[in-house]
């Protein structure tokens, strides 16, 4: 078990590609950290630098208090689970799990005990002698997990381990990974571009954008207090509505409509207003602002209503009970409004 410190870590590829820019993250012992961000934002690069598969251009990575910049991957006491699993195709499930231990000279009996234990945990007993080819996607995924577990590493590194699975399996494996990690208490760093996966798994989220950290925080913290328009748009589904507004006093103007807000001080002048679809309500006649419905997606208990207000597209989550006319009026929950600087996109804290 160990903590991981990432201090001012940057990665520059040949040709002046700055994949990771001066990232700082402190990961406590036993913590489950999820790195989340859009494709190409540098998640894998950061993870691979910690694994020792990429060199660190500048800054330091330490595992268990020891700087590992120059340490071989095998000596960093980490285990990694890859997106395509990277199982050795010619080796049996058992041999796949045992290979790393064998290379470290672990005694045979000990290897056997550890593999058996992992296999029991992952319910892989019937498949010990099979080749990866003869396993389903979910089973392969489990073998990849098993290979990580048997090493009893100081940290697990996951690079989008679930993205090759179908939706249903993904949800159940997600649960298993979470449980397993809790049980083993191993520090984990998990990369995904799926915000839902990130929300459900993480003790703390790290949102990356273009190689830079946008926000670090617990899932709920990030959800309720997004640090920027980027985070606001990325975390949460359906995404937060972002509207360019101009505020004078207690009046928020957008397009040709206005909203009046009480009980709250507002940042004056131009800014970006953020409001989650579930924080918009049907208004009583005359109050709120006019909204034109374009189309509706039924989700069962709820419905997503897509439309626009004064030319600004908005999405609203409403209950399925009521019938909707084409033109309705909406109101906002004042305390759930988010404001972001019109220039930098950063959150404006009142």
């Amino acid at each position, binding site marked *: 078990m160990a903590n991981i410190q990432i201090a001012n870590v940057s990665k520059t590829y040949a040709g002046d590609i700055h994949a990771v820019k001066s990232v700082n993250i402190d990961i406590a012992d036993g913590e489950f950290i999820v790195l989340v961000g859009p494709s190409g934002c540098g998640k894998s690069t950061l993870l*691979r630098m910690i694994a020792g*598969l990429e060199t660190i251009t500048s800054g330091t990575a330490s595992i268990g208090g020891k700087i590992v910049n120059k340490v071989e*991957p095998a000596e960093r006491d980490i285990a*990694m689970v*890859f*997106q395509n*699993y990277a*199982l050795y195709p*010619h080796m049996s499930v058992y041999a796949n799990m045992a290979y790393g231990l064998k*290379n470290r000279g672990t005694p045979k009996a000990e290897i056997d005990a550890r593999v058996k234990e992992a296999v029991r945990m992952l319910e892989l007993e019937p498949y010990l002698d099979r080749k990866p080819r003869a396993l389903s996607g979910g089973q392969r995924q489990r073998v990849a997990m098993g290979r990580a577990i048997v090493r009893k590493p100081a940290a697990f590194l996951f690079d989008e381990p679930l993205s090759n699975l179908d939706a249903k399996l993904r949800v159940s494996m997600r649960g298993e990974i979470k449980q397993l990690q809790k049980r083993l208490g191993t520090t984990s760093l998990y990369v995904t571009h799926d915000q839902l996966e990130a929300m459900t798994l993480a003790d703390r989220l790290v949102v990356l954008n273009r190689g830079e950290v946008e926000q670090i925080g617990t899932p709920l913290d990030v959800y309720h207090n997004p640090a920027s328009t980027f985070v606001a748009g990325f975390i949460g589904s359906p995404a937060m509505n972002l509207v360019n507004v101009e505020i004078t006093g207690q009046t928020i103007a957008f397009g040709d409509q206005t909203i009046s807000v009480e009980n709250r001080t507002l940042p004056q002048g131009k800014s970006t207003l953020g409001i989650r679809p579930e924080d918009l309500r049907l208004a009583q006649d005359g109050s709120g602002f006019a909204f034109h419905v374009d189309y509706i997606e039924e989700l069962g208990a709820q419905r997503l209503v897509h439309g626009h207000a004064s030319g600004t597209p908005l999405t609203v989550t409403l209950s399925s009970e009521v019938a909707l006319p084409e033109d309705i009026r909406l109101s906002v929950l004042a305390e759930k409004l988010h404001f972001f600087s019109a220039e930098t996109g950063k959150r404006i804290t009142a």
Partner: protein
Amino acid sequence: MKKYIDHLILIIGVVFMMGPVVVAFMTSTHDAAEIHMQGLMTTWGGHFAETYDEVLFEKGGFTGQVTGLAMLKNSFILGIGFAVGKIVLSMLAAYGIVYFRFRMGVVFFWMIFTTLLLPLEVRILPSYMVMSKLHLIDTYSGLIVPLLASATGTFYFRQFFKSVPDELLEAARIDGAGPFKFFIDILVPLSRNMVAAIFVIMFVYGWNQYLWPMLMTTDESFFTLVRGIKQILLVWVGSQIPDYNQAFALAVLAMLPPILVVIIFQSWFIKGLTESDK
């Protein structure tokens, strides 16, 4: 109707392709005088055992020095030696090129690549002179090693190694495998099918060498079957009734092993051929 035409064309094709091989075999089972009088045979003659026994075991069938069996042995040495040598050299070289970061990598790659530009046939005379300087005439190494000086196998393995997922090396490194371990434990077992495919191609290629063995071996104890064909033709000229039956028997012996290899390992053979570009 169209189906029958398709089959007809294919049958004509098969007769054209396999006919000569079958005729060669059938004719080899008749005796020389009979062939001389009646021409090539399409039926089984009674002299199979006799003729083949003579060709395989008796010295003096054609050259007065070497038996068919000895030539058969030499052919196998050349075919297998060449195939194994090719696989070992080119796997090692491709591993160095694909899996290592080093400055000379690109230079080496192009130096190997260049060998594709000049087949052995256009540089035989200087090659021969180099060989005689090195005293390699009439040796097995002289027969095999110079044929290894080409890029084909290296390219083949290079392409294959490049198609192996990167993550496998990464996983292996995290599992504590160094360059040798990774090669032996992961890459070589992973290449099994590729090795088999290239082996079939290279075995046939080595077995069928003609010009090079012709120059490199003057001592008949180093003759291969294919090289022996030349000798048949030399004896031919000026004899009254040529030993047609023995000539055909020798030709059959020279054809049979590579044909069997191609038929038995057909899927490997086709894979090796179509993926290695010659």
